[in-house]
């Protein structure tokens, strides 16, 4: 008796599972299709290229893992990795903190919100070319505005784009100007936090900080996870602005290669030295590294990310 009941239950479960599988696949089919059509081939090709010597025009020559081995003795591999990690560490966290702060301020019922929001978002709308050239001008050691202000405050005025010690901080500074998108996303997340929670907390006598730490942070943690992961993934591929700086100053890596970021070096190896095999190996090394990091963060996310939808 119990046996048949168990069977029907299990049959029911399997039926439901199958239905869920079908529905799930249906919903995700656009992406799966797109992946198969547009991404599978290029990704597989680049994996293949990493195992060959390929100059983009003659047929690739198989060399096995030689490209990967060469990476470990390439000093610019380490240098570019260092430069990139620097940018990620010193750029990402302050960026997130800053954007969150701004979003919190904007989330209050301050007058003129629309105006403020537009102002903060403005910089991200300026085309990369104009923005970078503009910043090169602002960071000019002698008459750039940044140093003028620093001088006025009696502080040290670095030779931003020339002194190898200050070129990366210059990039980080520029990065703050582009926090608009992050602020917007945090704002959207903050808007979604149920106001009841805050009101209930007020009744319980919670102060501002406790409200922030125990309500706001967990409530927006899904977005924080997103920003953290995307910041990591994008940060390690940092390219455009560094490239524009390089073109403008006629030197690919900047002063003492301090601006030789991983993706820029990769680009140089692929398109200037015509060594696509080596460049692809670099790409896949990065892939493994960042994927590991990403998975790690996802694993830990169970501890600090709260989804409102969780059962």
């Amino acid at each position: 008796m119990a046996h048949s009941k168990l069977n029907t239950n299990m049959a029911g479960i399997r039926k439901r599972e199958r239905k869920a599988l079908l529905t799930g696949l249906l919903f995700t089919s656009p992406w799966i299709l797109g992946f198969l059509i547009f991404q599978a081939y290029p990704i597989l090709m680049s994996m293949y290229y990493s195992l060959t010597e390929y100059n983009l025009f003659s047929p690739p020559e198989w060399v096995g893992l030689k490209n990967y081995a060469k990476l470990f003795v390439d000093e610019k591999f380490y240098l570019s990795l260092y430069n990139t990690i620097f940018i990620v560490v010193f750029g990402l966290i302050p960026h997130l903190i800053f954007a969150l702060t701004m979003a919190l301020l904007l989330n209050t019922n301050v007058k003129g919100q629309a105006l403020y929001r537009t102002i903060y978002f403005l910089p991200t709308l300026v085309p990369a070319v104009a923005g970078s050239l503009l910043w090169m001008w602002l960071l000019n050691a002698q008459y750039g505005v940044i140093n003028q202000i620093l001088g006025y405050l009696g502080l040290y005025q670095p030779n931003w784009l020339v002194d190898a010690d200050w070129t990366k901080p210059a990039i980080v500074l520029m990065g703050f100007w582009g926090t608009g998108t992050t602020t917007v996303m945090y704002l959207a997340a903050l808007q979604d936090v149920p106001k009841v929670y805050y009101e209930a907390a007020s009744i319980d006598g919670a102060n501002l900080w406790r409200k922030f730490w125990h309500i706001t942070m967990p409530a927006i943690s899904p977005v924080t996870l997103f920003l953290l992961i995307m910041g990591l993934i994008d940060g390690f591929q940092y390219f455009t602005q560094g490239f524009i700086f390089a073109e403008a100053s006629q030197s690919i890596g900047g002063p003492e290669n301090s601006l030789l970021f991983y993706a820029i070096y990769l680009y140089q190896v692929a398109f200037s030295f015509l060594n696509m095999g080596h460049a692809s190996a670099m790409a896949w090394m990065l892939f493994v590294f960042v994927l590991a990091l990403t998975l790690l963060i996802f694993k830990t996310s169970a501890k600090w990310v709260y989804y409102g939808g969780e059962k």
Partner: protein
Amino acid sequence: MKLKALHLMLTLVFAVSVVLAGCSGGTGGSQGNSGTQTSGNTNSSSNSNTSTNTNTPAPEKPKEKVKITFWHVWSDKDSGPINERVAAFNEMQDEIIVEALGNQDATKQLTAISGGNPPDIALTYWNNIGPWADAGAVLSLEEFIARDNYDLAQYVPAALERMVVNGEHYALPLSMSMASTLMYNKKAFADAGITAPPETLEQMFEYAKQLTKRDGSNITQIGFIPDYPWIDNVFWPVIFGGSWVDENGKLTANQPANVASIAYQRKFYEEFGDDQIAKFRSGMGQRGTPQDPLLTGQLAMMIGWEYNFAEERADDGPIGIAPFPYPEANPELKGGGMVSPRAVFIPAKAKNADAAWEFMKYLLGVDSQVEFAIASKTIPSVLPALDDERLTKNEAMKTMWDFYERAKSENLQGFPNSTYINEYLQALSEETEKALKGTISAQEAMDNVVKKIQPLADEANK
């Protein structure tokens, strides 16, 4: 509902754009190279060795026009002159229509050629020809040259040499950029009591000292900065008579002449102080604007290219020009300098190579060279054009006359072509930077370069 409103708005924008865009045929899924790909037409082109295209009369049926695509690197700002040439070519004959496309930088060209959609003819910078030809992206021109008895002796040797890879010509130099001039601020000279520009490098160093003014420990005017506006790792060794590789494929970047060229540059930094120069330099005006340091006198002398101060270097202008100094011990190096040509080439898998070659011959013909030089204020790479009266007796080109003359110098050189040219140049830049900063000696720097790059050279010569 707002979502619906957004959808509506987007659909409207979409619809309007489609209509407007469609009206002038801008959208669409048109395929790769537009155009009639009729096979085997152009050309029963002449056997004469003139570079102008001769129209051979059609045999029985009328020939169909061939459309060829020509990609160049210039943006709208600079593409006037080349567009004029294209238009002139299209007008003067009936068989080939050239469609020019600008903004096509190296990334795009490489991607398209590698990706199977090459243009028929393209223009790029000289340092790409080596690697690209070696990799198989470029069509060798030897067959065309032999077939048409094409005259290569008419070219400025240094310019043509940049187009040779493994003994074969893979491109032709459309025009030359040349650095072999010393430009100076006349007033600064007058104030310092200097009556004539320096002739030797040693003199230049002395003059630079005289032309440098200080206020306390800070520089207020500087005589010369050797790596302004950039570290030039080709120019300086050429001036000193150096070279980069010998006939056996051995790198010679660390030979005495090359090392001397870097040591000479370092002398300026030792004399005026690293920090002081860096500080002063960051305060110099922006190059190419009314606040350019050579114009304002902040900088007294600089390495001059033919496009610098085209107007201001007139006889009555504030900027003076002179041949760049030579080493005292080597007067035979007088007139030295580097050339940086633009190369026109035909991609290996181009669909209309023959027609492309016809167009190329036109571009390098004397008439086209002269017209292009007038419009773009660059230097022709073809010797007859350098003597052509349309340039040399043309008042409008007065400030170019000296450059035309100097372009004939036998001491003009360039950097040797190879598959590893970009790695070599990069290594030279990096090590030169260290040597200029004084972190290592010039000899050490160049030894480092050879150590880094010799393996690549050996690979390439196998």
